[in-house]
């Protein structure tokens, strides 16, 4: 087991290099660079930038060098000083920008994950055990409803209702007075009072699909002979459900951890933009559009690292939970 983990960790190093290089190339592939975009932005507000200024800017940002040199410089900065470069657009160190957003992203993602699982798993089990009952049909109707409504639409509608009917101010995660204030108990409470809306919106669609998956998993397990054996032992229906089929039906969810982690960053872009949330996803989108390559590159690198770590964690957990994987 330990050997397996070490081997996997060592493999992560070349994978990260390969992916980060690929990401760097991909970001540079579209014609032009940050300066072109920058000039275009200025031009749209009727400011004219002459060629010399552009060249000076390129030189300042190091954009006149070859791509390989730029990449090596960037990666060396990360390895030697933990320096991810300076964001062209924000004129701030990339690491600072990312970490500032990551904390809130994490809070939001965890909150919606917990909400999703807490709602979906029990309902999925109920739907499977009471297959074709009225309750099952009701939840099925709800899940298809939840699956088919685009989450940004749900966000708009809920925002409208909250603002017009209840007069609440729902954009962002903080009230204006706390936006720049240092952390305090009052700011925490403010955050909690505003968190429910994005969490609810994000949870609806993922809950819907999770209920279907859980129901299908349970339906696969329920007719298995070991369930009958447990019943013939005299276990109560609830106890045997929890101990046997549920335990095995949960295994596939452990595998999903692999893509839950990268989703922290890149998931729910549209909802975050609609609700004006200060999370990582809108920043990533903006960086890509502006060809702000150090910022975008750092994000892509982070997503890759999280994917690799996520799949390692899910593999280790699966082995811990399922002896068939651990021992064979």
């Amino acid at each position, binding site marked *: 087991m330990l050997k397996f983990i070490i081997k996997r960790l060592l493999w992560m190093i070349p994978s990260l290099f390969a992916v980060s290089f690929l990401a760097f190339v991909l970001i540079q592939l579209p014609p032009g660079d940050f300066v072109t975009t920058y000039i275009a932005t200025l031009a749209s507000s009727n400011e004219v930038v002459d060629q010399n200024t552009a060249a000076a800017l390129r030189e300042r940002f190091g954009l006149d060098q070859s791509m390989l040199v730029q990449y090596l410089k960037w990666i060396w900065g990360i390895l030697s000083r933990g320096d991810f470069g300076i964001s062209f657009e924000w004129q701030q160190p990339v690491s600072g920008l990312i970490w500032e957003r990551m904390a809130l992203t994490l809070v939001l993602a965890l909150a919606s994950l917990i909400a999703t699982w807490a709602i979906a798993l029990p309902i999925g089990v109920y739907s499977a055990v009471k297959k074709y009952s009225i309750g099952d049909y009701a939840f099925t109707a709800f899940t298809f409803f939840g699956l088919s409504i685009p989450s940004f639409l749900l966000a708009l509608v809920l925002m409208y209702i909250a603002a017009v009917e209840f007069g609440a101010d729902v954009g962002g995660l903080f009230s204006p007075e706390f936006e720049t204030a240092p952390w305090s108990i009052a700011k925490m409470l403010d955050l909690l009072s505003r968190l429910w809306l994005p969490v609810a919106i994000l949870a609806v669609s993922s809950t819907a699909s999770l209920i279907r998956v859980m129901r299908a998993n349970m339906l696969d397990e329920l007719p298995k002979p070991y369930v009958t054996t447990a019943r013939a032992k005299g276990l109560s229906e609830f106890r045997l459900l929890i101990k046997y089929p549920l335990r095995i039906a949960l295994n596939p969810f452990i595998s999903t951890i692999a893509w839950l982690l990268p989703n922290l960053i890149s998931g729910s872009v549209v909802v975050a933009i609609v609700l004006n949330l200060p999370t990582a996803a809108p920043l990533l989108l903006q960086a890509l559009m502006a060809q702000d390559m150090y910022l975008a590159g750092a994000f892509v690198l982070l997503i890759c690292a999280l994917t690799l770590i996520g799949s390692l964690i899910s593999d280790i957990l699966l082995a811990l939970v399922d002896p068939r994987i651990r*021992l064979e």
Partner: protein
Amino acid sequence: MTDILSITPRPSMAAGKTLLDVKNLVTEFPLRTGIFKAVNDISFSIEPGKTLCVVGESGSGKSVTARSILQIIDSPGRIASGSIILNRQDGTSVDLARLDPRSKAIRAVRGRDIAMIFQEPMSSLSPVHTVGDQITEVLRLHLNMSKAQARKEAAELLRQVEIPNPEQALDRYAFQYSGGMRQRAMIAMALACKPQLLIADEPTTALDVTTQAEILDLIKRLQQTTGMAVLFITHDMGVVAQIADDVLVMHHGVIKEYGPVDQIFHTPKDPYTKMLIGSVLKLEQKAEIRLARPPLDTTAEPILDIRNLSMHFGEMKALNDVSIALLPGETLGIVGESGSGKTTLGRSIMRLYDPASGEMHYRRADGRVVDLARLEGRELKAARRELRMVFQDPFGSLNPRMTVAQVIGEPLLVNGLSKGKELDERVCHLMDQVGLDPAGRERYPHAFSGGQRQRIGIARAITLNPRIIVADEATSALDVSVRFQVLDLLMRLQDELKLAYIFISHDIGVIRYMCDRVGVMYRGRLVEVGEADKVCNNPDHPYTQALISAIPRPDPRDRDRSKRFRYIEPSPHIDPSNVKNRSSAR
């Protein structure tokens, strides 16, 4: 209570109080089209310490009967009427049929008064819990033992069912056990609370015959020491003859005959019972069609000559230096237990596997001899047309989305031999040949019974006028009444079409009925080859002798278990390569 019972005394009750009394039990399954009565008005009783065998073919309702007693019928089945009176040792009685399937009262009976074991020990045990966990669970549930007490008791139970190193075995998982061990663990779990009744639902069907004999012995021995009664469900009349005190013959949910085992076997009254017993007795000798046939020309050039064939899966030698020849028109039986390599041999001949070494000389229709082990590409394709296969599982081996006409006609189509109206005519002719009504050719396989599906599989195999057919357990999944029809069909086709068969089976009876010669396989080696009569009745090799001795004799008056023994492989000469082999085979 006793008053009510004494109104209808049964003759057998005079000796003592019955343990379980089932009266007019009806178990039904509501369907879209109406109500299906899986068990229709049956009555029987079991006395303490006795064994009642419920015997019947698939769909007879024997399993549903067993599950009705514990109220663990699969949804949406339910008990519609009747009573199931359990008389406990402390003098109290309870009608199990009246209890709610989820009630506390029935849960107190399950696992404590009445325990159950099932057909598939692998899937009946949880794959992610240790065996010890699953046994201690029952002890803690019903006997309120502490963890330490329960663990100690569980180890003792495993020792009772003869599992070596019980302490370590507790912490292992079902998939780390062998098939026989798993069923032993299931039995240990069932016996944990010393139940008065053990319900065993086909507990040995998935096991090899030698393992089956050991499990039957174990149950018998435990029954003698604990005094529990056994309700044993099986389709195998041989097993019934060996273990039953009373027999209940079921068919389509009703009782055909019910009485002491000797009466059932020696003076059966019901025609269905007679048919069941006749089918086992028939397997005691060679088929009449075969006895009537003129002897084979043993001097003829073999159609297939296998020399020193070996096939490895990793470390395991699935085939170890196998040499055997097949004569034209001959049926060569290959018999062996699971893991003996008999299926691997069949698949290697079909070149579904590429053998590691050895030769398979096949004499083609034009007299040319080719080595099947070396053929590639077009040549292999041509040879494969002349070698066809019939599979075990009549459900899994037919594509559910193809009509029967498509299934049977496909070999003709993909080989570009026939199409359109001509193809249709040939399909109709083939269906006629295997005894199916060609009118059903546009239907899908699910519309056919197991026996009919196997006929479809046979029709597909003979489509291209093959010369050799490899039949891998072709009748094992079929009920006895259908099995003979399929065996007789195979023999008739053999004579009509001049086919040579390689007939792979674990069932000595079928081999004896059908085959001219037999090869016995054991751990990848061919240990004995000879005339079917000789090998099946008077074998030379100790392994074959052990195998034959383990087969339950279909006569309740012949229960001498002392004749049975287990084959223990003689330790080979000290040879480093050989030693390595043996340890890896474990």
